[in-house]
Each structure stands twice: as structure tokens, then as C-alpha cells.
């Protein structure tokens, strides 16, 4: 357990010290503020921007999506890099179990992605709270923010981090990038509607409707919400487990 915690700690700390992490966070924050900053023009353009819940919903579904795409690249190289630098061979020669190594990497990646997403949402909500040209009770911002962190940020981080760390351990990292680009591309092309969203939506699936629902659309499709949650958490856990089950990963025989 102690060794696994050491790996988690290293992964978490190392990722936070990378300039690219802050570059991605900065790019996503600038994009979010250009899109959702409560300026007169944005308030005129977006009908519900005066509602804090809508702001959090939009920041998570649209701008959080860009952030997760960037983090996917940063997380994907964890296993290939260890393999390339010979670190994996070094670790294999230690009294370290395969399970400890993989779980350390996966959990470290998850905690990192979840923390960055929480920082991103909190930062944007704080800017919205301070800059809004109308009075907002603090609780009106905090409630949707906490909801977004629990119902959306957690499963999304789990999906992105576990898939991004685990899959390049099994397939060529470039092939993984291609798969991820196709999935993210399909997500980006999706236009929201009153009907249930496809289950494979990452940040704009029906889970996000637990934060805010368009008042013009009545939505009570619980099955679709469960399907989206199951896809995000289930596929993350399945890919993570596949790597643990793969014998060839740790010993070549």
C-alpha cells in the first residue's frame, strides 16, 4: 500500500509541476471566459447566462470538454514513457507488484484530472460570481458547482484518466490518439436537443442535465442518465482492469 501511495504521490506532483498542465488549464480558462464571461454582449447572446446553474452547466459541458481533451494527451504518455526510458524495467526489478504499479498510475492520473477539473470549475465560477453585473447569492453559485463536481466532474475524470492512462499501455499511443480524436470529434459535433443525448457523450451527456435543464424542454429520462454514467464509469474501470489482467504487461514471458 505504501508503495502504491508513493507512485500516486509522484504522478500527482509530477503532473502538477509540468508547464503543459498549466498551459492546457490556461487555454481552457481563456476559452471559457471568452464564451461565458457575463459581459453585456454574452448576456445578450446567451439567454440563460444570468442563471449561475446555467453558467456552471455550460462551463462543464463545453469548456470542460476542451480541458479534458488536453489532459487526455498529458495522461496518455505515462506508461509509454516509463517503457521508453527504461523506468519500467527498473521498477520491475524492485519488490514492486504489477497491481501496485498500475493502480498507482491510474489513481494518480485520476486524482490529477479530477483536481484540475475542480480547479477549472471553481475558478470560472468565482470569476462569474465577482464579475456578474447583477447580485447573486453565494449559495446559488456553490450549489450547482458542488453538483457539477459530484455528478459530472467525477465520472468524466474517471473515464478520461483511466482510459488515457490504461489504453496506451496496451495499444500504440498514436492509435489511442486517433480513437480519442474520433470520440471527442463526435462529441464536439453533437448539437443538444430536448431528446435524450447518446450515452457516449463525455461532458455533454444526460448526466449534465442534473445540474441544469432548459426550461423549454421537459426532461425526465432517468434511463438515459444512468446509461451515460454507466458508460463513463464502466468503460474507465473496464480498461483499467484489462491492463491489470494483461500478463504480458509486466513480464515478457
Amino acid at each position, binding site marked *: 500500500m505504501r508503495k502504491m501511495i508513493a507512485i500516486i504521490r509522484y504522478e500527482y506532483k509530477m503532473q502538477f509541476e509540468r508547464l*503543459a498542465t498549466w498551459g*492546457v488549464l490556461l*487555454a481552457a480558462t481563456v*476559452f471559457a471566459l471568452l464564451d461565458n464571461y457575463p459581459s453585456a454582449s454574452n448576456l445578450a447572446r446567451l439567454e440563460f447566462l444570468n442563471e449561475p446553474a446555467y453558467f456552471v452547466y455550460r462551463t462543464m459541458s*463545453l469548456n470542460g*470538454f*476542451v480541458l479534458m*481533451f*488536453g489532459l487526455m*494527451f*498529458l495522461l*496518455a*504518455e505515462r506508461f509509454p*514513457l516509463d517503457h521508453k526510458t527504461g523506468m519500467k524495467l527498473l521498477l520491475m526489478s524492485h519488490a514492486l507488484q504489477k497491481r501496485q504499479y498500475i493502480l498507482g498510475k491510474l489513481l494518480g492520473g485520476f486524482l490529477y484530472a479530477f483536481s484540475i477539473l475542480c480547479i477549472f470549475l471553481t475558478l470560472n465560477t468565482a470569476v462569474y460570481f465577482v464579475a456578474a453585473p447583477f447580485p447573486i447569492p453565494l449559495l446559488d453559485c456553490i450549489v450547482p458547482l458542488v453538483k457539477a463536481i459530484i455528478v459530472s466532474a467525477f465520472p468524466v475524470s474517471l473515464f478520461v484518466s483511466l482510459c488515457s492512462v490504461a489504453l496506451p499501455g496496451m495499444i*500504440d*499511443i*498514436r*492509435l489511442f*490518439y*486517433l480513437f480519442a*480524436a*474520433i470520440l*471527442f*470529434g463526435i462529441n*464536439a*459535433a453533437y448539437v443538444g436537443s430536448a431528446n435524450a443525448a447518446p450515452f457516449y457523450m463525455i461532458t455533454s451527456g444526460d448526466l449534465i442535465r442534473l445540474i441544469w435543464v432548459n426550461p423549454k424542454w421537459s426532461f425526465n429520462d432517468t434511463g438515459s442518465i444512468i446509461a451515460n454514467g454507466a458508460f463513463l464509469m464502466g468503460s474507465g474501470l473496464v480498461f483499467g482492469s484489462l491492463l491489470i489482467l494483461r500478463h504480458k504487461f509486466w513480464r515478457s514471458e
Partner: protein
Amino acid sequence: MIRRATSEIKIIGINFFIISAAFTSALIVLSVIAGELLNFYPVSFEVMFPFFVTIAVGEWGKTRADSNFDMIAAQSNSLFHWVLLRYVITFGISSLFAIFCMMLSSAFRYELPLWELLIIYLPPAFFLSSLCALFGIYYTGEHIATLACGIVWLIVLLVRSLLRISGVEYIYLFIRYADEQNPVWLWNKIIIAAIGLFLWGVIYLKCKKINNFCFT
């Protein structure tokens, strides 16, 4: 030159060909099964294939992230020639796969002539891959160039509503995907290609600067 090109192809490795062939095959299958609902050509050749080419240039045609970069920069007379050759090989081979995919998918669903498909495909692919080559010559970290171009690609996909602003249609990267009937799409492609050429001017200056630094 042929010997150098052969050597570069060997460095790129077999995975590049396997993944390119798999991606091309997947798109051909999609062209058969997609039906009329999917706007197949813009999605495939204006959005997806250019990003695949970008991944190829960033990952297989890496320059500064190459572990031998310092040695190559110190020993070659012109770093720019090496960067250009590596780019031309990765871009060229991926584009050959794209053309093959266009020809085969046109056999199953003829909607647009081949020359129009080429015009739809080449400028965004050239721009995004040139941007990737530019990031590749500036940053030493592996995957950083692909990451930066990936974020640009995704943001451009997400901001298609900006087309409501007059003038944006001239520089929006995926004009046929966002607005197929837009009359300025050909101008848009010319401008995108010109920006791509400008990026190569910046790459040339950067290579010259590195070369000068190595020889002084």
C-alpha cells in the same frame, strides 16, 4: 535524396503504415454503411483526415522531440531541409492514404468529384500539419505539438457558431463541414493554404536561427 527518404521511412516504422491503413479502411467501411444522414465527405476529409495527418506529423515526423535532434542540428548544413523532408514524407504518405480513401469511397457513393475532395482536404490538412511542424520545432517535449494542435482542432470544431460574424467564413478551418453551401469556401481554402505557407516561413526562420547558433 532517395536514400535519405528511404532512411526516413525506415525511422518512421511499420506502425505508421498499419495505423494509416486501418484508419483508411475504417473510413471506407463508414462510407458504405453511413447512408444519407451523415455528411460523409466534409466530416471525413475536412475534419477527421486532416487531424490524422496532424497526428502523423507530430508523432512520427517529430523534429525537436527526436532524441537525435541536437546531433542532426549540429551536423547538417541545413536543418530546414531535414525538417521539410521529414514533413513531406509523413504528410505525403498520409495524403496518399487520404486520396486512396477518396477514390474508393467515391466508388461507393459518388457525391463530389475527386478534385473538389482534394480541395476540401488539402488546405486544412496542410495548415494543421504545418502548425504541428511549427510547434514541433519549438518544443522539445514529446506529444506537445500534437496536444497543441489537438486543442486548436477541437476549439475550431466547437466554435462554428462564430460563422455568424461577418468575415469569419474566410478563415474558418472547416467551412464545408459547418456550412456546405457557403459561396466563399474556395476563397477560404486559398487563405487557409496561404496561412500554412506563412507558417513554413516561420519554421524556416527558426531553423536558420538554430543553424546559426550551432555554427557560432
